[in-house]
C-alpha cells in the first residue's frame, strides 16, 4: 500500500459518504457504540492534556434502529463484499476474524471479503478497540448483517432465475438453482439498493461451519514480514513538516516562559507555537527539529510532588476515599463477623507498581488543519475519540474532521486517550501546514498514562470444614478520576476483584475499591485491574489451600461446583502441564491461577525454576487452557494467548515504573528492561476448549491476567517464597526467603 497523500477533503468525503448505498447492495446495521454523556470538557490548557490526557470513557449503548449511526456491509458490482468498521487491527487478528465471520455466513470465499478499518467518514463510531470486545460485541452484529445479505441475494437470485429460494444453494459467491446460476457480481450489478439489518433472518448452524473455527493464517502476516505494513508513523502528506513539543522536566509542571530566539534561526525551522502551557517548534526535516528543540529555552514551575514509587503504597491507603462496594446485589456478607472467631484468619497485603505500556511504535500522528476541513492520520485504538478530541480542541464541528485510523505498532491501552493528535492539530493550526509529530521514547515513557499501582488487602480464613469462612477484599488504587474529569470515568481496577466471578459459592464476602491520590495519570493497561486482582486472589487461595492441607487443584475443585466451564479449563491446563507440585526447596515449581474475563474462562499453569541462592527466577514452561465459547480462529487465539503470557511475564519478572519528584527515574528501555528473547519461556502450550454454541468470548486480555498468580504460586512451590509485591525481582525473592537483600551499592 502506498503512502496516503491528502486529497481534497471535500471531494474525498463526497466520494466516500455515498459509499454505503453506492453501486451494489448494502445492508445497513447498527453497532454497539459509546455514549458520551460522561465526557469531561477538555481543558483549554494543553499542559494538562500533555500530562493527564482527556478521558472519553462512557457506557455502552445500542442505538435503536432509525438512528443516524449506520455502518454498512456491501456487495460491490465486482462481487466483493466490504465491511466498514471503526475497530482497529494491530495484530490481534480481528481483521481475519471478521473476514471469516462474514464469509461463513454469506458463503463467499474469505479472500473476497474486504474489511475497511478506522475511517471515521465511512464507518460507525463503534466502541473502541480495547477490552477484548471486538469479536465479542461487533462479531455478532456483523454475523447478523451477513445473514441478512445472504437472504437478500437468495431472494434476488430466485426472482432472476425463476426458482424458489429453497431450491438455491450458495458456494463461493455463486448462487445455483435448477434454472442456472448467478454470481454476487451479477446480482449487485446495476443496483444501488440498501436494506436494513434483520434480526429475523436465521443464522447458520455452527455445526455446519466451514470457515469460522478454522485456524486460518492472519492476512496481515506477509506485509509485516516484508516491512510493507503501514503504521501511523509511516504516513506522509504533501507539504508536511515535523513538529516537536517542548516538554516539562516533571509531570504537572507549568510553563512560565519560553525563548525560541536561538532555535528559530536554526536550519530548517519553519515556525513555533506557544499557547498557554504548550510550546512546540517545527522544522522541515526530522533531524532539524531534533536539533532545534535542544536550542529552545523554557522555564517551568514544577509541582514539587513528594510521592515516590516506594511511598505510593502508603499514600494510596492514606488518601483513600470512603470506598465503593463491588459486591453484586445480595451477595455481600459480613466477613469481619464471620472471621472474628476463626483461628488463623489473617490479612495478606499485595502491592503492584505502576506499569508502562511502551509499545515499540511511539505515539505518532499527522494532522492537516485547513479551512475546508481537518484530516488526522493517527495510530489509534479509537478513531472516533480522536475525532471528538481534535474537533473540540480546534473548536470545529466533528463533521469537519476526518480521522484516518492507522494500524498501531503496538498499543496495549496506550493509544486510546487522544494526545498526540491534539498536539499535532494545535501545531498544524499554528503553522498552517500539515504536521507530523512523533513522540520520542522519553516522552512515550513519561507523558502518556500508566497502569495504576494497587495495594490489595485480603482478610480470610477457613471454617472447621476447610471452606472459606469469610473473605474481605480491600483494593486501594488511584485510578480513573483523572484531573479535569467532572465525573468518575469508569473503574477498570475493579475487574475481577469480586471473588464470586471465579468462585461463586464463597459466603460472607465484602469487596471494596478505594480511590486515592495518583501522582501518575492512570489508564487501562491490557487488563490492568484483573491482573492485580488475580495476583491477590489466586495467591490467597493457594495460601488457604495449604492451610486446609489440600493441593491447589483439589481445593479449587471444592469451590467450582457451580462454575463447571472454569473447572474444565483448570483440569485441562493441569493435565497439559504434567502438574507435579511439591512444596519445598527443589527449586522447581508449578503454580496455578484461574481467570474469567471478556466471557472467556481461562486457567494457566507456570512451571518455574528458582535459584534460592541468587533469587533468579526462570520460566520453564507455560500451559494455558481456555474456553472462549465460539472460537472464530484458533490460530489467532493461540497467538494472542502466547503474546499475553509473554507480555504479562515481562511485568511479573521486571517491570516497575520508578519515580520521584514527579519524574520517572527509569524511563528508558534499558532501565525499564522489558523481557527479551532469552527470558521468554521456550514452551507455551495452549489448549482451546471451544463450544460453538456459546457466545464468542474475548481473547486479548484473558491471557494476560492470571500469569502473575500462576508465577507467584509456582515460586512458592519451588522454594517456599511467598511473593506479595510485584515484580518478582531476585532481591524480592531473596527477601521473601528471609535472606540478606542488601543491594550492591549499600
Amino acid at each position, binding site marked *: 500500500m502506498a*503512502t496516503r497523500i491528502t486529497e481534497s477533503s471535500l471531494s474525498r468525503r463526497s466520494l466516500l459518504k455515498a459509499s454505503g448505498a453506492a453501486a451494489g447492495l448494502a445492508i445497513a446495521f447498527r453497532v454497539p457504540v459509546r455514549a458520551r454523556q460522561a465526557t469531561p470538557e477538555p481543558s483549554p490548557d494543553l499542559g494538562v492534556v500533555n500530562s493527564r490526557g482527556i478521558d472519553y470513557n462512557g457506557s455502552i449503548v445500542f442505538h435503536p434502529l432509525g438512528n443516524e449511526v449506520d455502518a454498512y456491509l456491501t456487495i460491490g458490482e465486482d462481487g466483493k463484499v466490504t465491511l466498514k468498521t471503526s475497530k482497529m487491527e*494491530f*495484530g*490481534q487478528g480481528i481483521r481475519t476474524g471478521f473476514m471469516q465471520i462474514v464469509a461463513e455466513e454469506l458463503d463467499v470465499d474469505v479472500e473476497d471479503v474486504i474489511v475497511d478499518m478506522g475511517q471515521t467518514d465511512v464507518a460507525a463510531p463503534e466502541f473502541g478497540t480495547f477490552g477484548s470486545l471486538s469479536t465479542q460485541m461487533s462479531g455478532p452484529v456483523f454475523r447478523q448483517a451477513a445473514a441478512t445479505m445472504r437472504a437478500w441475494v437468495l431472494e434476488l437470485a430466485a426472482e432472476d432465475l425463476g426458482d424458489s429460494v429453497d431450491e438455491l444453494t450458495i458456494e463461493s459467491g455463486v448462487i445455483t438453482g435448477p434454472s442456472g446460476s448467478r454470481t454476487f457480481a451479477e446480482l449487485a450489478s446495476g443496483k444501488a439498493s440498501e436494506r436494513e439489518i434483520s434480526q429475523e433472518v436465521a443464522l447458520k448452524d455452527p455445526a455446519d461451519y466451514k470457515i469460522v473455527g478454522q485456524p486460518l*493464517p*492472519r492476512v*496481515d*502476516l*506477509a*506485509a*509485516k*514480514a*516484508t*516491512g*510493507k*505494513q*503501514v*503504521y501511523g*508513523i*509511516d504516513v*506522509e502528506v504533501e507539504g508536511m513538516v515535523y513538529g516537536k513539543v517542548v516538554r516539562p522536566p516533571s509531570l504537572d509542571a507549568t510553563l512560565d516562559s519560553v525563548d525560541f530566539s536561538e532555535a528559530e534561526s536554526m536550519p530548517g525551522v519553519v515556525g513555533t507555537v506557544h499557547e498557554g502551557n504548550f510550546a512546540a517548534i517545527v522544522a522541515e*526535516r*526530522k*533531524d532539524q527539529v531534533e536539533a532545534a528543540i535542544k536550542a529552545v529555552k523554557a522555564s517551568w514551575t514544577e509541582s514539587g510532588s513528594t510521592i515516590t514509587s516506594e511511598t505510593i503504597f502508603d499514600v494510596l491507603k492514606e488518601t483513600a476515599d470512603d470506598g465503593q462496594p463491588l459486591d453484586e446485589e445480595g451477595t455481600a456478607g459480613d466477613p469481619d463477623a464471620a472471621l472474628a472467631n476463626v483461628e488463623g484468619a489473617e490479612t495478606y497485603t499485595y502491592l503492584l507498581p505502576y506499569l508502562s505500556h511502551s*509499545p*515499540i*511504535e*511511539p505515539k505518532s500522528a499527522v494532522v492537516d488543519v485547513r479551512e475546508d476541513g481537518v484530516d488526522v492520520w493517527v495510530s489509534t485504538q479509537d478513531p472516533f475519540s480522536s475525532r471528538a478530541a481534535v474537533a473540540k480542541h480546534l473548536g470545529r464541528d466533528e463533521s469537519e474532521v476526518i480521522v484516518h485510523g492507522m*494500524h*498501531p*505498532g*503496538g*498499543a*496495549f491501552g496506550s493509544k486510546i486517550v487522544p494526545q498526540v493528535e491534539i498536539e499535532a492539530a494545535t501545531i498544524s493550526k499554528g503553522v498552517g501546514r500539515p504536521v507530523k509529530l*512523533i513522540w*520520542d*521514547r522519553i516522552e512515550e515513557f513519561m507523558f502518556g498514562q500508566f497502569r495504576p499501582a494497587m495495594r490489595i488487602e485480603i482478610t480470610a480464613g477457613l471454617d472447621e470444614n476447610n471452606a472459606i469462612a469469610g473473605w474481605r477484599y480491600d483494593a486501594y488504587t488511584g485510578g480513573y478520576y483523572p484531573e479535569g474529569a467532572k465525573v468518575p470515568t469508569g473503574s477498570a481496577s475493579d475487574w475481577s476483584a469480586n471473588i464470586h466471578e471465579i468462585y461463586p459459592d464463597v459466603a460472607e464476602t465484602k469487596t471494596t475499591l478505594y480511590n486515592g491520590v495518583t501522582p501518575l495519570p492512570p489508564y487501562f493497561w491490557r487488563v490492568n485491574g484483573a491482573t492485580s486482582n488475580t495476583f491477590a486472589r489466586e495467591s490467597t487461595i493457594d495460601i488457604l489451600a495449604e492451610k486446609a492441607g489440600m493441593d491447589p487443584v483439589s481445593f479449587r475443585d471444592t469451590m467450582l461446583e457451580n462454575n463447571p466451564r472454569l473447572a474444565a479449563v483448570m483440569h485441562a491446563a493441569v493435565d497439559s502441564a504434567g502438574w507435579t507440585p511439591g512444596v519445598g526447596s527443589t527449586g522447581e515449581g508449578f503454580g496455578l491461577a484461574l481467570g474469567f474475563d471478556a466471557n472467556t474462562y481461562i486457567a494457566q499453569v507456570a512451571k518455574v525454576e528458582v535459584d534460592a541462592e541468587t533469587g533468579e527466577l526462570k520460566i520453564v514452561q507455560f500451559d494455558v487452557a481456555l474456553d472462549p465459547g465460539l472460537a472464530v480462529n484458533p*490460530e489467532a487465539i493461540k*497467538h*494472542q494467548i*502466547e*503474546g*499475553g*503470557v*509473554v*507480555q504479562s*511475564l*515481562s511485568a511479573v519478572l521486571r517491570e516497575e515504573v520508578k519515580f520521584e519528584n514527579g519524574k520517572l527515574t527509569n524511563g*528508558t*528501555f*534499558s532501565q525499564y528492561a*522489558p*523481557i*527479551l*528473547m*532469552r527470558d*521468554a*519461556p*521456550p514452551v*507455551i502450550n495452549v489448549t482451546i476448549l471451544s463450544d460453538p454454541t456459546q457466545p464468542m468470548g474475548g481473547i486479548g486480555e484473558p491471557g494476560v491476567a492470571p500469569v502473575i498468580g500462576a508465577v507467584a504460586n509456582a515460586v512458592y512451590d519451588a522454594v517456599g517464597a511467598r511473593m506479595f509485591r510485584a515484580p518478582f525481582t531476585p532481591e524480592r525473592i531473596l527477601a521473601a526467603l528471609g535472606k540478606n537483600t542488601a543491594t550492591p551499592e549499600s
Partner: protein
Amino acid sequence: MAETKITINGQEHTVPVSDDATLLWVLRDDLKMKGTKYGCGMTECGACTVLIDGKPGRACVTPLSAVAGKEVTTIEGLGDEENPHPLQQAWIEAGAPQCGYCQSGQILAAKALLDSNPNPTDEDIDEAMSSNICRCGTYTRIRQAIKAAAGQQS
C-alpha cells in the same frame, strides 16, 4: 546544496543532505523505505536494525558518514510479499508477527545470525536476538521461525 551518496540494498542513491544526517530518517523520508522503524532513537530496542556490511547496526544513531563506502541492507532488500526471502517465508509460516512493528529489525538480526552461524543452538539464538525488544510477546514464534529457516539453509 549538500549531497551525499549512499548504497542501499545494492543500489547507489544521492540524497540532498550532508553526511551527518541520520541514516534512519534518510531511509524513511528521502528514500521512502519505511520498513525500517523508529522505536527509541537510543539503540535500545532494535526496531531500526539494518545490516551494515552484513553486521547488525542501529540506523537511529548512524550518520551517513559511518556507512560511506559500505553496503547497507534494509528489510526491503530481502524480499517482498510475492517473493519473500526464506527468512521472511519462515516468519510468515510461523505466524510470528503480531503488531509487526519490531519485526523488520528482528528479521535482519536473525539474518546476521544465520549468515555467520547457519545452525545456531538455542543459546546462540537467545544471545543474538536479545537486543531486539518485542512488546507483543512473539519471542517463541520468532525462535521457531529462525529454527525453521536454519533447517532450510543447512
